[in-house]
C-alpha cells in the first residue's frame, strides 16, 4: 500500500483472475495468500519470505500476521494456529485483503480455523501428512474434510509435505524430526513456483540465517527447491499465476513493518535534532520489536534501557529529557495506564518526550496479539487533572516513519510529551516504503537556554518564561552555569517557576497548558473525492485507512460518490476539520472501538457523526465497510 489517491482498480472481493486464458499461465491483478499452521510451524517466517519475494519483484503489497499470544499452544489445536496473510498486486493496494484466494493449511487445525474466511473457488493446499486420525480428532473432525466433500467448492491440492520434505533432505543426515521442520520451506517453494516469484533472495536469506549451521541451511534450501520442483513436475498444479509489478510512484522502495518504520523514524529524529536518543522501555506485545530494533542502533547514539517496569521506562526517559536527550518510551495499552502519572509529570514539567502506544485488544491484558484502537480516550484523557498532550496516529506501516518524525517535531518545538498511537495491525503489517532522502527530512535542531532571562532586571533564570508564539518554555539543561533551577509536579508560578498555590495562577496555568497544545501547528486534512460531488464523508483514524480507502474505491467502481478523509493528528485536530465536516450531509466514522473519535467529533463540532464500530481484534474488511458505506450513500440519495 502506497499513499496515493490516484484512480486505481477497485479491490474486488473475489479471486483476482479476470483474464481467462486457456494456457497454463494466467495473469491476475492481485492475489491474497494465507499461510496457516501450528505456531511452531514457522508460518510467520514463511509469510515474511514470500512477502520479500513479492517486494523484490516490484508488486505492491500489504500483510497481516495473526498469531496466538501463547508461544507454543498445544500442537495441532485450534488455539495454536498461527497465520500470515499477504496481499500483492500489480497496482497500489490498501489492505492485506479480506478473503484469501489461496490457503496453505499445514494441519487440520489450520484448515478448520481458516475455512470460514475462504470465498467459493479458492485454492486450498493442504499437508495431507498431518491429517491423521489423532490430529483430526483434536479439532473435532469426525471424518476427514479431505474425504467428506466439504471442500468441494474449493480447488483442493493434497500434498504430502512432511514426507516429501523428509525425502528431499534425507541426504543432509538430519534427524527425521529436524528434517520435518523444513516443511514450511517446502510450502514456500511450492507457492513461489505457483506465483513465479524470484527465489534468489530466499536462498541467500536461508544461507545467512543458518550460517552457523550449514547442515540446517542445506536442508532448508533442499526443501525449498523440492517444493518448487514439486509444482513444476507434478501435474496436479495445472495453472500458475503471474502478478505483474505495480506501477507505483517513481522512487526506490523497500519493505517495512510499522514497528521498523517507527524505529527508523526515531533514529532519524535523533539525527535531525542532533540529540542523543534515550529509549526507556519494558517488553510488551506488540511494542517490543521497537525496543529490539532500537537496540541495534547504538552507533547512532541511541541508548536503550530495558527497565524493571513500565513506570521506570518512562521515568528514565523523562530523566534523560531533563538532561537534554530525546526521551522516548514504547508500550502497549496496559503499559500506557502505568505510565500515566509520569506523563502527567512531564505535562507539568513542560519537557519534550515521546510515548508510543502500540495498541492491542483491551481491557486489561485483553488480546495481546490482536489489534484495536480503543486507547484514544486513554491517550487524550487518561491522566489526573487537566493534562493535555498532543496525540498522533499513523495510518499505515510506512506512515509510522513520518508520524514519528512529526511527533518529535511537536515535542521539541512545544516542549511537551507527545503520544503516538500505533496498533498491532500497523506494527506487524508491512508494505513498500518509498525511501526518503535524508536531506529532505525536517531540521529538528533545538536551542538550549544559555543565559539568564528574568524580565525584572535580575540575573535570574525563570524556567517558565514562554516563547510568545509557541508558548513553549526554555529548555535549560544541567551543566549550564547560572541557570540552576528546580522543576517539579507541584504547580508553578508562570514565568518564575517557583511553587505557587495561588488560585489565579493555577487557573492561568491550566489554560496556558491547554492553549499551548491547542496552538500546535498541524497539517490540514485533505479530502479525497474524485468526482467532487459526494454527499457522504467517511472519516477514520489510524490503521483503518486501508480498508476505508478500499471500500471507497469499491463504491466508486459501482458508480457511487463518497468522500474520504483521515486523521493523523488527533490532538489538536487539523484546523480545517470543522469546515470539512460541515460540508457533507452525512459523516460516517468507522472505528475499532466503541465510537471514541465519533464522540469527540460530535462534542467538538456539533456534527451528527454516525459511528460504525467493530472490536473483534482484527482490522476491518473492505467488504463490510463497502456494505456499510453503500447503505449510507444510498440512503442519502433516496
Amino acid at each position, binding site marked *: 500500500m502506497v499513499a496515493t489517491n490516484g484512480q486505481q482498480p477497485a479491490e474486488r472481493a473475489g479471486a483476482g483472475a479476470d483474464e481467462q486464458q486457456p494456457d497454463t499461465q494466467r495473469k491476475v491483478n492481485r492475489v491474497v495468500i494465507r499461510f496457516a499452521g501450528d505456531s511452531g510451524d514457522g508460518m510467520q517466517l514463511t509469510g515474511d519470505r514470500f512477502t520479500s519475494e513479492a517486494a523484490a519483484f516490484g508488486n505492491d503489497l500489504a500483510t497481516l500476521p495473526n498469531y496466538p499470544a501463547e508461544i507454543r499452544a498445544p500442537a495441532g489445536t485450534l488455539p495454536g494456529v498461527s497465520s500470515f496473510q499477504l496481499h500483492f498486486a500489480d497496482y497500489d493496494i490498501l489492505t492485506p485483503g479480506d478473503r484469501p484466494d489461496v490457503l496453505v493449511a499445514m494441519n487440520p487445525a489450520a484448515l478448520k480455523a481458516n475455512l470460514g474466511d475462504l470465498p467459493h473457488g479458492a485454492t486450498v493446499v493442504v499437508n495431507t501428512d498431518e491429517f491423521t486420525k489423532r490430529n483430526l480428532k483434536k479439532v473435532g473432525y469426525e471424518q476427514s474434510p479431505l474425504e467428506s466433500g466439504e471442500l468441494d467448492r474449493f480447488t483442493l491440492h493434497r500434498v504430502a509435505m512432511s514426507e516429501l520434505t523428509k525425502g528431499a533432505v534425507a541426504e543432509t543426515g538430519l534427524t527425521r524430526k529436524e528434517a520435518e521442520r523444513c516443511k514450511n520451506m517446502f510450502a514456500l517453494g511450492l507457492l513461489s513456483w505457483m506465483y513465479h516469484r524470484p527465489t534468489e533472495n530466499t536462498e541467500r536469506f536461508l544461507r545467512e540465517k543458518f550460517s552457523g549451521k550449514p547442515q540446517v541451511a542445506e536442508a532448508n534450501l533442499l526443501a525449498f527447491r523440492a517444493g518448487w520442483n514439486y509444482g513444476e513436475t507434478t501435474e496436479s498444479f495445472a495453472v500458475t499465476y503471474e502478478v505483474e509489478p505495480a506501477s507505483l510512484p517513481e522512487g526506490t522502495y*523497500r519493505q517495512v513493518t510499522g514497528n521498523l518504520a517507527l524505529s527508523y523514524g526515531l533514529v532519524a529524529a535523533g539525527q535531525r535534532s542532533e540529540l542523543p536518543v534515550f529509549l526507556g522501555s519494558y517488553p510488551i506485545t506488540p511494542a517490543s520489536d521497537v525496543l529490539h530494533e532500537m537496540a541495534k542502533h547504538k552507533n547512532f547514539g541511541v541508548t536503550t534501557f530495558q527497565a524493571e517496569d513500565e*513506570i521506570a521506562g518512562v521515568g528514565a526517559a523523562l530523566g534523560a529529557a531533563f538532561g537534554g*536527550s530525546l526521551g522516548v518510551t514504547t508500550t502497549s495499552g496496559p503499559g500506557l495506564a502505568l505510565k500515566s502519572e509520569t506523563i502527567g*509529570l512531564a505535562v507539568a514539567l513542560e519537557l519534550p518526550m515521546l510515548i508510543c502506544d502500540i495498541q492491542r485488544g483491551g481491557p486489561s491484558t485483553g488480546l495481546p496479539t490482536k489489534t484495536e484502537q480503543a486507547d484514544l480516550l486513554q491517550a487524550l484523557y487518561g491522566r489526573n487533572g487537566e493534562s493535555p498532550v498532543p496525540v498522533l496516529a499513523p495510518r499505515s506501516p510506512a506512515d509510522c516513519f513520518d508520524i514519528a518524525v512529526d511527533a518529535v517535531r511537536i515535542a521539541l518545538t512545544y516542549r511537551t510529551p507527545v503520544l503516538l498511537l500505533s496498533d498491532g495491525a500497523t506494527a506487524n503489517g508491512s508494505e513498500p516504503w518509498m525511501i526518503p532522502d535524508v536531506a529532505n527530512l525536517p531540521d529538528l535542531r533545538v536551542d538550549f537556554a544559555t543565559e539568564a532571562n528574568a524580565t525584572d532586571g535580575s540575573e535570574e533564570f525563570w524556567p517558565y518564561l514562554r516563547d510568545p508564539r509557541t508558548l513553549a518554555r526554555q529548555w535549560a539543561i544541567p551543566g549550564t552555569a547560572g541557570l*540552576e533551577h528546580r522543576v517539579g509536579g507541584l504547580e508553578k508560578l508562570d514565568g518564575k517557576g517557583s511553587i505557587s498555590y495561588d488560585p489565579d495562577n493555577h487557573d492561568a496555568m491550566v489554560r496556558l497548558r491547554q492553549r499551548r497544545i491547542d496552538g500546535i501547528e498541524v497539517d490540514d486534512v485533505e479530502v479525497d473525492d474524485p468526482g467532487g460531488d459526494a454527499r457522504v464523508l467517511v472519516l477514520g483514524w489510524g490503521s483503518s485507512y486501508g480498508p476505508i480507502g478500499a471500500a471507497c474505491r469499491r463504491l466508486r467502481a459501482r458508480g457511487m460518490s463518497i468522500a474520504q478523509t483521515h486523521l493523523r493528528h488527533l490532538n489538536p485536530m487539523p484546523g480545517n476539520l470543522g469546515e470539512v465536516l460541515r460540508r457533507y450531509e452525512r459523516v460516517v466514522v468507522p472505528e475499532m472501538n466503541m465510537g471514541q473519535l465519533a464522540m469527540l467529533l460530535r462534542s467538538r463540532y456539533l456534527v451528527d457523526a454516525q459511528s460504525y464500530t467493530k472490536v473483534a481484534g482484527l482490522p476491518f474488511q473492505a467488504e463490510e465497510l463497502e456494505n456499510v458505506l453503500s447503505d449510507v450513500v444510498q440512503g442519502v440519495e433516496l
Partner: protein
Amino acid sequence: MTTNLGLPTMGGLAEVPTTDEEYSAKDFTSDQEVRWCPGCGDYAVLAAVRGFLPELGIKRENTVFVSGIGCSARFPYYMNTYGMHSIHGRAPTIATGLATTRPDLSVWVVTGDGDGLSIGGNHLIHALRRNVNITVLLFNNRIYGLTKGQYSPTSDQGTVTKSTPVGSVDTPFNPVSLALGAEAGFVARTLDSDRAHLTETLRAAAAHRGSSLVEIYQNCPIFNDGAFDVLKDSDEKQRRLIQLRHGEPVTFGPEDERFGVVRDERGELRVAKLDEIDERDLVIHDAHREDTGHAFALSRLGGQDLDPTVTGVFRAVDRPTYDDQARQQLDDAARQRPADLQQLLTGRDTWTI
C-alpha cells in the same frame, strides 16, 4: 557471561567538571523558604549537604538533586543546583535516565522510608542492582510525615497510628539489609544528629562510583518524635552505637564497659563483653569484601530496638556501573560503524520504480 570492560577504578565524580571557585554553603542555598516543621531532622541533613558540597570542588551547575514525594522530597527546592521534585517513588528511575545520558553530572536522589521503600521499593532495588552512578539519601524516620502519621515500611510492629488504631502487624524492612540483598556496591548508615559522621559518610558515598545508599536515621518531631533518642542520649549512645571502620575490629561501649563483635560457633555474629573474649576473635570490618555476607551479618546486629545500632560504611565495593557500560557500548558501536542514516533507511533489499 560477563564482559570485563577493563575500566579503571574511578571515583563517583571522575567525569564531573571541577571548578576553582570557592563555594560556600550559601552558594548551594536557593531563595526558597525552608518549610519543614520546626525540629525536623531534615534541617540537619540539609545543612550538612549544603556545607559539604563545596569541598567536592565540582561545578555547582553539574549537580542535580532528584526526589519523589514526601517531606524529604522538598529537598531539591532548597538547593541552588539543578533539581527535580518528581512523583511518588519514581526518583530512582528519573535519576537513572539522567545519569546514564550525562556522565558529567553528580546525581543525587533524596527519598524517605515511604517513598523509597514502599511505593518506590521496586525502583530502589533495581537501581542498586544495576549500579547506576547515583547517590541515594534515604531519610528514615519510620513514619509517614506528609500524609500525617500513618505507619511506614520501617515502623515498629505494633505502631499505633490513625490507619492502624490497634497497632500495625507487618514486619519492617531493615534498609541496609535490603540494599545489600539488592547487590548495592555502597551501603552506609548514619544519623541526622551527628553532623561529623553524616558528613564523613556523605563524602564516602559521593566518592563511590556506582549506586550508593546512605540510610539516615532522622527524627520526625510531629508523628514519631524521639524514635532515635536513645542514640542521642550520651550514655545510651555509648552503650549502643557501633561505628564501623574499615580494617578495624568492631568494638564499642563506654571506657569501663567495652563490647566487641565476635563470630560464634554457629558462624553468626554476636556482641560480647571485651573482657570475656580473646581479642583475636574480634571481627575485623572489611567493607571491600566482594561477598555481601559479612556486611549483611553486621546489618542484622540489632534492629528495630536499636540495641545495638550499627552505623558507618557497611560495604564499599567497586564493580562496573550500568551507565559506564551502556556508554561504552555506544562508543564501541560508533567506532565500529559510522552513523550513516541514509544507508540505514535504505537497507539491503530495495527496488526502484
